[in-house]
């Protein structure tokens, strides 16, 4: 996968201080094309389907919103905290619109209903970037969606 003009422009927007204070790339110094390609390979290796993952995350975001800003258990499997902070974020990809800062924090519940350690953190924008561009953010980014964590937290073992 090569860095085309769109990817170059998007990567420039992802730097810290442009759209968000921290940016989208963390400490990852790979180019955007490489990050996306590696994550596509990793998702395939883990047998994770982008569309299925995206839909599961949409469902959790929707059901978590019922907590009205407080954490809520969903389907007795997850503890989901959906909260919104002031403002919106534009997509680093030009022309994709703006997204409300709706953060969704997902933790798996154990058999006793207690939350386990791994956390999946995403917002409307990160979900859009996952679905449209297969971009899971750079390593070290707060909103990085590590494919193995996606698999563990969403429980996609099938």
């Amino acid at each position, binding site marked *: 996968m090569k860095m085309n003009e769109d990817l170059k422009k998007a990567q420039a927007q992802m730097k810290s201080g442009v759209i968000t*204070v*921290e940016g989208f790339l963390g400490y990852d110094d790979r180019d955007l094309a490489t990050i996306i390609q590696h994550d596509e390979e990793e998702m395939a290796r883990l047998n994770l389907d982008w569309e299925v993952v995206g839909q599961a995350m949409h469902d959790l975001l929707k059901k978590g919103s019922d907590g*009205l*800003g*407080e*954490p809520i258990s969903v389907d007795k499997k997850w503890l989901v905290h959906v909260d919104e902070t*002031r403002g*919106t974020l*534009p997509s680093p990809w030009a022309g994709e619109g703006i997204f409300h800062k709706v953060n969704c924090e997902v933790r798996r519940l154990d058999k006793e209903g207690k939350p386990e350690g791994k956390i999946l953190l995403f917002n409307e924008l990160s979900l859009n970037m996952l679905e449209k561009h297969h971009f899971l953010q750079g390593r070290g980014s707060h909103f990085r969606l590590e494919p193995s964590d996606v698999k563990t937290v969403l429980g996609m073992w099938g």
Partner: protein
Amino acid sequence: MTTDLLILQTLLVGLVSVLMAVMISIIDGIVNNYGDVVVDVNGKKQMTVKGGTKLLGTLADQGIFLPSACGGRGSCGACKCQVESDVGPHLPTETPYLTDKEIKDNVRLACQVKVKADIKVHIPEELFNIRKMECVVEKIVELTYDIKEVLVRMPAGTELNYVSGQYGQFEVPKYGDIKEPTARAYSFSSNPQMKEHVEFLIRLVPGGAVTTYVHKFLKEGQKINVIAPVGDFNVKDTDASMICVAGGSGMAPMKSIFNDRIARGVINDRPIWYFFGARTTKDMFYLDWLWELDAKYSNFHFVPALSEPGPDEDWKGPVGLITTVLDEYLQTKIPLTDVKEGYLCGSPGMLDACMVVMKKNKMPEERIFFDKFA
């Protein structure tokens, strides 16, 4: 011979690079040098400033602070002001935050407008009270695992006049990967009678630049900047029953309102129903104080509710989402004949859900006041 050529080549490349850098610098100086420009505010105040910077920063440098929750990044839409001069068409980064009428009236986001020539702006008079103050963090209290109470002291000799419901921008210094001071807006939880201090309740937002700093690094005794007071959420001067609903750090303006009314001796003048929702007792705080108010003042009614109390929690209060509990109380416990006003603070989802319940129970929408985003 080959080595000499390499050295010569390197020197030439270096020379060309230096020349290009100088040329870029000169061109930049010419193209982006707007010289001195005059900013006219409300036709009353004229300030001569160096052109070329964004209106939000230009005004701030002159001590005029427009509300901003995103630090001028164009993501909150708070720094609106009317620009009476022609500064070009609205940018795509502005229009999502502006109504058709605002666009027609040439309301702009000050963080997106570059001051390139003389400019006339109109700013609501009340915004002139907003100041930037270097404060000292006096006390930090951990209220829950993700909410901290932060008390800051104003600079010596400074008093901040504000009303309960207003908020301040809390600015933290650069740290780690955060390359610049960053400010976010938080409601005051302090009693406005206590003018030498302001207090905030700050909930940790995952990945949040300011909240992460507050929760991980902020220390008592540290200096931080506060830009305040901002906002128009406040208690209306009527006799209507106050139906207050909050969750999490949405407690902040409610604490400020109640303590203000206690200090002014009017806490019992009108019925106050305070609904506070949380998931478990771990998410609850200030319970002792609020129960004390409930016991002490006949018109103050505290209704805490848990949505998912654990089996090992000794919870005897209402169980369910706060909207469910609110609905039940509006239907069965709060007199239907009471004239009511709603005061809400919390996430947009909670506010929208509360609005539905209140309107269903015949509370007029225009009597429901709120501060989205605690």
